[in-house]
């Protein structure tokens, strides 16, 4: 790999042709694009290269959790368009692929179409999903014990294929298939009453979605009817074949609690069907309406088997046991209905009225039967528990907005939103209640304006304010004000300044909650693109953000209220300077407060046209994470990348 990287890195030295961009062609568009040697039937480009990572210092697992770019030969990008001049099987086919060769997110998309006959699209994505952060998962970290708990190293892959028949006609049938999988391994925790044991686990889940429908298009009316079905399965196994002392190695009531052997398996199977209807219409030039209705009903069946032996403690019986077996079967059903309706009316030239209504209703009902067999002090004990659970959520929203063009350059906005809902959930056993219920009632006032002074200045401001009498959770938005202002000003044809300000204040004065939350973000950006940015372009952005959160919580062991406070003051900067073949920049993030963190990502890149249809790229990047309180998670990495891009 390093040989390939060296060859790629030295490629420009051997280049004999006069660089194509010496003629003044823009950097991103080499002349090859204009005159394809392959002719019009095939155009595109392909970029291949190699990444070398000389060092990853510090926590490799955190590096993989945060960055996860790897070494080796890569296909960075491929982009082809095929045209059939005789229009036999297709008119045009587009193929786009990016980041293959061990990259954390690979994708390929194929789009083939023949006008008025068919359109076939296929999309594939493969995502490396890795997470292992000791400060998140390890309860003994403050005692200096580093355990492998709650980590996973998995791959998600997603495939979508859709075939449209007779596109462009008033009626277009379509069929589609989506296939998603996740598989991999990790560490999870097997928990018993007085100890927990990190054990190896394997994940495997899969979802298939089948759908078909009819789309009907007239000039002013559109309807879509779709019927779909989903099947899914979710399997997880955990195992341990050697003695595992667990996190609690101190004797409990004179005995050590340990795990000798474990075999644990979840097996979940489910399916769902759904019906979806969409419509949109512009019956008159001054009104649009649209709406959507979806009903789905997933059902699942679950089985769970666990067999373990070692030395464990059962709090309910106040006895130790050596062998345990759990067998569980369960079912769940979740009918889910959603609907929305929108209307936009422009009764006068200056006025727009937007009406929006939506509802979302879910009712989860389930039951489970658990049988437990234990070997207590040499004698078997069998118990069975039957459990039923319920979750009902109803949410609705109604909003009316008025937009009035007060002046040709000023639009005023005002509106009102009403959100309401109710929910019932199974209460935790400790409450002594069977069910808990919550309600939501929220009235929101909406205001704002849009200001446009020619093509130079644009300012958009939105604000919301509300009082709520009932919310679902202690941390929910209760009495809040939300403001967002963003503006753009073109100082000259080559200079642009943008600003962005957002503020969210929320509080719940209830004496048992006393929640006070504030989040603020201010951002200013500068763009300099002389002569359209063909030779030089500069952009710089600075953002200052702050979060302040105070809320009462009960310290569990004394049931006494105390403040939970969170503070974060962050500074983020990004910059990118591009001068002909050369670009540099990067970003930084530095915060103080509850979790002081610094994260730096500078980069330098050179892109040189070396032959008529070839461009050479080289790049250096650095990733550096520093956390003051969790320095064991710090990492630093330099990365070198070289690639060549061929244009057809």
């Amino acid at each position, binding site marked *: 790999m390093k040989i390939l990287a060296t060859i790629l890195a030295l490629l420009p030295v051997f280049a004999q042709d006069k660089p194509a961009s010496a003629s003044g062609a823009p950097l991103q*568009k080499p002349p090859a694009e204009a005159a394809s040697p392959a002719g019009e039937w095939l155009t595109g480009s392909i970029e291949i290269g190699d990444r070398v990572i000389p060092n990853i210092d510090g926590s490799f697992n955190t590096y993989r959790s945060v960055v996860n770019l790897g070494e080796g030969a890569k296909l960075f990008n491929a982009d082809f368009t095929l045209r059939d001049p005789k229009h036999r099987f297709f008119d045009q086919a587009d193929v786009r692929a990016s980041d293959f060769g061990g990259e954390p997110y690979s994708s390929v998309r194929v789009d083939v179409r023949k006008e008025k006959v068919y359109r076939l699209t296929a999309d594939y994505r493969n995502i490396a999903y890795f997470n292992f952060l000791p400060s*998140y998962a390890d309860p003994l970290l403050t005692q200096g014990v580093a355990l492998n708990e709650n980590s996973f190293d998995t791959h998600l892959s997603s495939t979508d294929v859709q075939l449209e028949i007779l596109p462009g006609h008033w009626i277009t049938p379509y069929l589609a298939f989506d296939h998603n999988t996740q598989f991999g391994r990790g560490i999870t925790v097997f928990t018993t009453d007085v100890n927990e044991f990190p054990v190896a686990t394997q994940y495997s889940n899969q979802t298939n979605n089948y759908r078909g429908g009819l789309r009907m298009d007239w*000039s002013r009316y559109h309807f879509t009817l779709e019927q779909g079905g989903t099947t899914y399965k979710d399997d997880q196994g955990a195992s341990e074949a050697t003695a595992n002392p667990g996190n609690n190695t101190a004797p409990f009531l004179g005995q050590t609690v340990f795990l000798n052997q474990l075999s644990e398996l979840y097996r979940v199977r489910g399916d769902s069907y759904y019906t979806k209807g969409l419509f949109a219409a512009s019956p*008159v030039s001054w009104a649009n309406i649209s709406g959507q209705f979806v009903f789905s009903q997933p059902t699942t069946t679950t089985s769970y088997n666990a067999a373990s032996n070692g030395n464990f403690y059962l709090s309910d019986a106040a006895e130790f046991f050596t062998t345990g077996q759990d067998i569980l079967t369960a079912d769940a059903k*979740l009918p889910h209905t959603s609907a929305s309706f929108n209307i936009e009316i422009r009764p006068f030239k200056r006025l727009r009225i937007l009406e929006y209504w939506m509802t979302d209703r879910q009712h989860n009902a389930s039951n489970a039967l658990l049988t437990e067999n234990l070997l207590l002090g040499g004698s078997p004990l069998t118990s069975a528990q039957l459990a039923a659970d319920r*979750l009902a959520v109803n949410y609705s929203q109604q909003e009316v907005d008025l937009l009035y063009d007060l002046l040709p350059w000023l639009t005023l906005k005002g509106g009102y939103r009403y959100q309401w809902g109710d929910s019932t959930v199974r209460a935790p056993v400790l409450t002594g209640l069977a069910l808990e219920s919550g*309600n939501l009632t929220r009235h929101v006032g909406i205001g704002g304006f849009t200001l446009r002074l020619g093509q130079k200045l644009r300012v958009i401001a939105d604000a919301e304010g509300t009082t709520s009498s009932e919310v679902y959770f202690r*941390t929910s938005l209760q009495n809040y004000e939300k403001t967002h202002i963003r503006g753009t000003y073109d100082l000259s044809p080559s200079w642009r300044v943008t600003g962005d300000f957002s503020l969210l204040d929320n509080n719940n004065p209830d004496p048992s909650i006393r929640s006070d939350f504030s989040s603020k973000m201010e951002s200013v950006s500068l763009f300099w693109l002389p002569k359209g940015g063909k030779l030089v372009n500069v952009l710089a952005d600075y953002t200052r953000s702050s979060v302040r959160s105070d809320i009462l919580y009960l310290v569990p062991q004394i049931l006494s209220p105390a403040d939970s406070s969170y503070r974060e003051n962050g500074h983020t900067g990004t910059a990118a300077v591009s001068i002909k073949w050369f670009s540099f920049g990067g970003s930084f993030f530095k*915060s103080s407060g509850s979790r002081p963190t610094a994260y730096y990502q500078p980069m330098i890149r050179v892109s040189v046209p070396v032959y008529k249809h070839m461009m050479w790229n080289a790049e250096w990047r650095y990733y550096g994470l520093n956390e003051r309180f969790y320095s064991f998670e710090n990492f630093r990495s330099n990365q070198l990348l070289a690639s060549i891009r061929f244009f057809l």
Partner: protein
Amino acid sequence: MAASAGGFYFNSVAGAAFLAWATCLAASAAPASGDYTGSEACKACHEEIFNKFQKTPHYAVESDARRGWEHNSCESCHGPGAKHAESGDAAEIRQPAKLKAPETDRICLNCHLNTRTPVGRIAGGHAKDEIPCTTCHSIHEANGAKLVLHRPAEVNAQCSTCHTSQWASFQRPYKHRLPEGAMSCVDCHNPHGSFRPETMRYAFGNEPGCLNCHNDKRGPFTFEHAPMRMEGCTACHEPHGSANPRMLARHEQRLVCLECHANLPLLNQAGTIGGVPPAFHDLNSSRFRNCTVCHVKIHGSYVDRALMR
């Protein structure tokens, strides 16, 4: 509550009245009138633009008689162009990119409303018609711009020119990998509108778009964690980026949990859901500072009501 219900009733009646009014006054679709000149005349002066336009999907309008603009594709958006062709005066022709945002959107949505796209259905203009379609889509693909961006890095660059503060959040260490070009904004959002808040895309019919990738969190679980359904992922996570591992909203994981699970036992004074705290847990012990070490199935469990397995 009565006032609230009254507000709903008023809004519903008002909406229905407007709809009825709109329907009653609906006139038949007026055919485009005026003095049209045809695309060939446009091409004579704007050949470079026309040649690029020919390679875009919109060129289908030129040859498709059913759409009503055969040989008049330019004027399907720019309006009648005969006067402009005669005088050469830019003021004599409609330039959608320079109209007010809702007017531009109206031209586009006349054909595209409800059209399926890779990121979802086009339900309307961006930001309630305040940002016109032409801000993101270059219709003629002039100056190297594209009609539709496909590569994640290009999409992200496009979105971040306006959503600067959101882009700043992605510079934090724990985030979705957008700065690496591994994902794009439209993987989660449908900029053309959605019935979910924050123009979120949806998955599997009507579930939150997060489940497109995180489908192991979908369920339905036998034992649901209520915030998953009621407030969504953002109840605990900051999806754009966070200084805290796993994009949590707090620096210590237990505080994420205890801020909700802190109601007084039995009294439920504040009328909120969350139940009592786990009274037998000793937070002085580091063992109890990371709740998900035991409650590993925090998003929902198929087998355990306490979400422990």
